[in-house]
């Protein structure tokens, strides 16, 4: 496929995964991501792949652990409550350094919450939602096209670093239909000499494991992981800037919120207010360089999230609090309008907002 077709965001993820050579999908139904397992159940048999509806998200992520450990390009997908169940397996996958793609199409919480879109799993995704101190690369698409493109990129990065990658979307982009081009497979093929595939003449067994009973060996393992994470920080920060050069106020938003922020910036510019957008695409590693730079030229930042404020902590860290960082958020599945954001912009730029 190289021409544009109209697709839902969730379907674009699934088709891009197939295009990227993913032939193993393990999942469990939950709104608002169920289009992904449904699409895979149709598509995988057509390409000789495996679709398996697991008995739970716990089982699904452990099937991913097994398939990834056995050398396959593999993925699972879910939404917030299901992603909570996967955290044990994600920690094991990170500990055993297994490449895989985990999709979270976020809905509101806490608890069973609701089925409407949200961005309240930022902490869980970027700070290590499971135990033990690990990092996943976290990519946040803001369009159906990026759902597809970042899926492919996710598989490449997972293999390159032997690390889980999370695609962190929201219910809006998951459900939204837009024209999308599913690109030719542009992922790198990576040898996996470490995988448990059967010895087949190899002298020593391959062991997939995250257990190190001796404290010094576990510390060595952690130090190796931290070195890898430092490499990711150096190489894999991604972001987009719109109208930031002359901006007095920098709006910071990802995913669907960044789209709405863009409309608010258009209104602001029409009214002579210099606002710009800094959109983190990689939420981990968090793209610090543009924040350091823009903290010198802008007068303030406004973080926008469909949560009560999670990414704002990273924004304050990245700007070293050099300039005021304001926050505006909605929760529970409520979505902010461009006019709501514009009013926040006006309050800050007209000096009516105390820090």
């Amino acid at each position, binding site marked *: 496929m190289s021409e544009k077709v109209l697709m839902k965001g969730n379907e674009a993820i699934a088709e891009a995964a197939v295009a990227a050579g993913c032939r193993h999908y393990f999942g469990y139904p939950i709104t608002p991501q169920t289009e992904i397992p449904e699409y895979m159940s149709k598509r995988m048999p057509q390409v000789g792949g*495996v679709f398996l509806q*697991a008995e739970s998200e*716990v*089982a699904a992520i*452990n099937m991913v*652990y097994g398939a990834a450990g056995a050398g396959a390009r593999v993925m699972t997908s879910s939404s917030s409550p299901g992603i909570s169940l996967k955290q044990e397996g994600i920690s094991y996958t990170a500990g055993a350094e297994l490449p895989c793609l985990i999709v979270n199409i976020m809905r509101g919480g806490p608890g069973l919450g609701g089925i409407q879109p949200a961005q309240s799993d930022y902490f869980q995704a970027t700070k290590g939602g499971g135990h033990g101190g690990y990092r996943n690369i976290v990519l946040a698409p803001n369009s159906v096209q990026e759902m597809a493109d970042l899926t492919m990129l996710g598989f490449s990065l997972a293999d390159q670093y032997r690390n889980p990658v999370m695609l962190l979307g929201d219910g809006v982009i998951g459900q939204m239909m837009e024209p999308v081009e599913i690109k030719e497979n542009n992922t790198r093929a990576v040898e996996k000499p470490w995988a448990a595939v059967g010895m087949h003449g190899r002298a020593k067994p391959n062991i*997939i494991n*995250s*257990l190190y009973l001796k404290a010094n060996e576990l510390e060595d393992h952690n130090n190796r992981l931290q070195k890898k994470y430092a490499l990711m920080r150096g190489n894999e920060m991604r972001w987009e800037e719109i109208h930031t050069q002359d901006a007095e106020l920098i709006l910071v938003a990802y995913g669907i919120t960044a789209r709405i922020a863009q409309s608010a910036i258009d209104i602001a510019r029409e009214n002579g207010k210099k606002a710009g957008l800094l959109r983190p695409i990689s939420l981990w590693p968090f793209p610090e360089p543009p924040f350091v730079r823009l903290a010198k030229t802008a007068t303030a930042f406004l973080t926008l999230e469909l949560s009560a404020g999670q990414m704002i902590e990273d924004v304050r860290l990245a700007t070293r609090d050099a300039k005021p960082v304001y926050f505006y958020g909605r929760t529970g599945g409520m979505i902010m309008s461009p006019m709501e954001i514009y009013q926040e912009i006006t309050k800050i730029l007209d000096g009516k907002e105390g820090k």
Partner: protein
Amino acid sequence: MAEVLFSRPKALFDIPTHYCPGCHHGIIHRLVAEVIDELGIQEKTIGVAPVGCAVLAYDYFNFDMLEAAHGRAPAVATGVKRVHPDAAVFTYQGDGDLAAIGCAEIVHAAARGEKITTIFVNNAIYGMTGGQMAPTTLVGQVTSTSPYGRNLETAGMPIRVSEMLATLDGPAFIARVAVNTPANMNKAKAAIKKAFELQLSGQGFCLVEVLSICPTNWGKTPLEAVKWLEENMVPHYPLGVYKDVQEAAK
């Protein structure tokens, strides 16, 4: 049994294990390794180790292995087998691992007829964590979390895993064995062999439950422990074949 006693199977490394004196885990490892040697499948075997006393099984077996989270071995093995349908994939799990925290994973792997083999080591206790009550602990049995003996009113009856799984259509072979006598060891080995053969011929899910002793946490000598197994475990957990699609077809 002479050759069995004097030659170490290729599928087992020649190193001492961490198991307590008299523990049956070592014997069961050996039987699995002998079967893998006899079937000539070491090169295509992929094992999945549990969380439990056998967590370090990958240090002893000489083939590719994955270490799974507590109870998740059947899901991990499912992932492996779906990638390598021709491999001989097995899980090795204790009774806490399989019958408590991993109950959903084992039931659904069995129900799907997942073409894997499970070696289920039932010692009626949580060995690794120091002897707490397991779902398989017998009524009245004293453990560190049932200090007055397992109470039927509050803890219910111990789960008979083989009987339970044999009610499903997915399994091809389910047997309960013990390794308390040379004769039983031979039967156990034959069952393990069949559980691999039927997996490899694509018949379905295969499980061998091995009644096993934990002298350390039972507070007994190995000899006393074997006697306790015979007098208390075997009556509640009768030995025998609970499902065999090959026999059924005859």
